[in-house]
């Protein structure tokens, strides 16, 4: 127990030196607080509350409203097709389907609150479609689109399969079950999203007020979902089809929207949407992650992320064919694109997230 003795002796000496120690530490603290504060340094004003308000009001709310009206247009044009099945009406449905699908790329980033609670993302954006399941549903009827078995037989991807088949118009003309199924898919999305959008109005104040650092706070959710969507976009829209996860063997059956061939457009749109959130708005006006980084004196990183987004978007622009065509003729180009997209992950997931001090873990954490 000699150690304890020493401990106790220390305590006794501490009593005498106590006042000195306190003065010394106070002096040190004062010294530091003055010497480290540069009076000329003016940080741009920043507030997470403003960022969330901006994202909610100028990005999420308009995106949700636009998406809701896109789905209404899709519903309307489909009714027209049902009444008079002709090529012009089918083309109108396709155009509306595509407009809604493009808008979805922005909406899908916000997978929290009502969108998450209603499981809307999985029900809308899952691909590839299980065409056997779709066909069997059409043939047998009596399906429940909300059941787990039908996760791969609903949403935009199932419509891609139904609208873009070579004999689609013939089926819409002569097969009422076929028409009914497509109609049910559209109805499901429309009704469910109307619900989501309605609930969003009530959720918005909670979202804007939740500026804390806990994982359930809106800011953490936004950062985490932003990252999740980025990685999902990278893997599902490009990586998996070009064979990144399958020993370099291409998997064309995993291409998103394979029948319509708009997968590269969707990828590009997805990157544009992420950039909109990153910048805080379309015309680069409101507060976004970019502004927060600048505020934290991480301008280099802030600019680098934005530049990388531009590079990615421009790079996709350069492809002329569909993803499937490019997979046949331009493997290297796609791989380069993939690596470009991958480089950004470290910027946003590691550097940006740690600069924000956002915690990814759900459990207690003592920092190690």
């Amino acid at each position, binding site marked *: 127990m000699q150690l304890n003795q020493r401990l106790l002796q220390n305590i006794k000496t501490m009593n005498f030196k106590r006042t000195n120690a306190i003065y010394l530490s106070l002096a040190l603290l004062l010294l530091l*607080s003055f010497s480290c504060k540069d009076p000329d340094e003016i940080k741009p004003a920043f507030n997470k509350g403003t960022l969330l308000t901006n994202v909610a009001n100028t990005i999420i709310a308009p995106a949700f409203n636009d998406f809701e009206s896109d789905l209404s247009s899709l519903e309307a044009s489909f009714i027209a097709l049902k009444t008079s099945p002709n090529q012009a009406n089918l083309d109108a449905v396709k155009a509306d389907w595509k407009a809604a699908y493009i808008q979805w790329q922005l909406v899908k980033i916000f997978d929290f609150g009502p969108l998450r609670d209603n499981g809307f993302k999985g029900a809308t954006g899952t691909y590839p479609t299980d065409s056997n399941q779709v066909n069997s549903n059409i043939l047998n009827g009596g399906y429940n689109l909300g059941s787990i078995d039908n996760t791969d037989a609903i949403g935009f991807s199932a419509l891609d399969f139904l609208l873009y088949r070579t004999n689609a118009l013939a089926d819409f003309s002569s097969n009422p079950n076929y028409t009914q199924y497509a109609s049910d898919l559209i109805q499901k999305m429309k009704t469910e999203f109307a619900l989501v959008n309605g609930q969003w109005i009530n959720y918005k104040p909670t979202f804007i007020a939740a500026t804390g650092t806990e994982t359930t706070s809106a800011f953490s959710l936004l950062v985490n979902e932003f990252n999740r969507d980025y990685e999902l976009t990278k893997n599902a829209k490009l990586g998996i089809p070009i064979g990144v996860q399958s020993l370099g063997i291409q998997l064309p059956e995993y291409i998103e929207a394979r029948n319509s061939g708009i997968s590269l457009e969707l990828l590009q749109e997805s990157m544009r949407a992420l950039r909109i959130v990153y910048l805080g708005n379309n015309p680069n006006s409101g507060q976004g992650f970019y502004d927060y980084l600048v505020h934290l004196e991480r301008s280099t990183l802030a600019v680098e992320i934005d530049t990388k987004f531009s590079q990615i978007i421009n790079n996709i622009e350069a492809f002329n064919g569909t993803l499937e065509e490019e997979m046949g003729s331009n493997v290297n180009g796609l791989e380069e694109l993939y690596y470009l997209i991958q480089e950004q992950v470290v910027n946003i997931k590691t550097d940006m997230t740690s600069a924000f001090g956002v915690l*990814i873990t759900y459990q*207690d954490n003592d920092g190690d």
Partner: protein
Amino acid sequence: MTEIKTNKLFSPFKEISIAPLIIFRIIFGVLMFLGTVRFISKGWVQQLYIDPSYYFGYLGFEWVKPLEGQLMYIPFILLLISALCIIVGLFYRASALTFSLCFTYIELLDKSNYLNHYYFVSLMALIMLFLPANRNFSFDAKIWPKIKSITTKQWTVSLIKFQLAMVYIFAGIAKVNSDWLIQANPLKIWLQAHHNIPLVGSLMQEDWLAYTFSWAGCIYDLFIVFFLLSNRCRPIAYLFVVFFHLATWYLFPIGVFPWVMIFSTLIFFSAQFHERVLDFFSRKTWRENPVKPKRLSSLRKKQTRYLLTLYIIIQLLLPFRYVLYPGDLFWNEEGFRFSWRVMLMHKEGHATFYMVDPKTGRESEINNSKFLTRTQEDQMATQPDMILQYAQILKNYHHGKTFHYGDQKITVENPEIRAKIYVSLNGRPAQLFVDKKHDLTKLNYNLYHRTWLEPFKK
């Protein structure tokens, strides 16, 4: 420690009041009970010990495996029961043993969940097992009046104080590093994230506040124990304890730890303080009919002395084992755990793993979420030993498997596992942590210095 003044030498076998030990037993039991209730009600049993497909065991303890499915709730229920028994002092030794075994078993399952405060509880539970904390104000003392005592050996209370002192002092020593003191990081990062809290929010973005907190935290950790030990300073020191831990509880997601420290440090208060508490709750009956303290044989004394010395030496040396390793401690994390490095760094990583078929040279990028939970992936990406363990998990999964892609069929034998990992430490831009050039399956998981990590650039 008024007892000491009458006695020149610290004597571990001197009889002192048992009251502090009794109160500590009750506090420990209550906190452990509430902590376990909280753990279960947050769904963490399911999330941490049932849902994962793989677990990251500790070196030498990889054989410790979770129970099948819902059976995993059993050790948690045992924790609840034994904590209750500890509170009321019923079948104390058996309860303390059960608690200690169950708690340590759970902690050994997965290092992804390692927290210093869990380690603290494991040690405390082990210590409690050897203390006669049931010899008063307990059902045991009612059932077996022969054990009722109003005194205990001095070492029993001192050991608890020693353990608490270790936590504080080593946490303080760990803060003496340039990131903490000169950069005020990671506190600068963590505090600014709170700029929206009412009233003081705007202060949270100020650098001087991060410096103040960093230095004050370091000084607090280093010296608080000495102030708690001094009779004169104790009341004020305890106010500091309460304030400090409430502040950390408010600002950081550290669960029950602040409460554990706030209540545990009551052990530093005088025997009279604890006696008065017991007087109040037992209407002084705790003082009635005690047995006379037993004199220990010199052999028992010797054994106790040796065991205590051994324990103390281990506790003093373990946190310093990092000096045996070259390189940056925070980067390499060699000798990092079990050293009271609490709330010390902010590490964020991104790990991309590759499975390479040696026959064809073809490679697949791994989707980590297929194998690991989010917490596991997050922890693994910055901790070298977990990176090696994960590489083995991936190797075992892919070895001998035949993959059908389109019309191609590839059987993978003895795959190489490579990784490209970037890590950001304390807000620095991310740096390469692990280069893709290493086949991680060829590297051994042991305690030797890891040469395959990329060097840290400040």
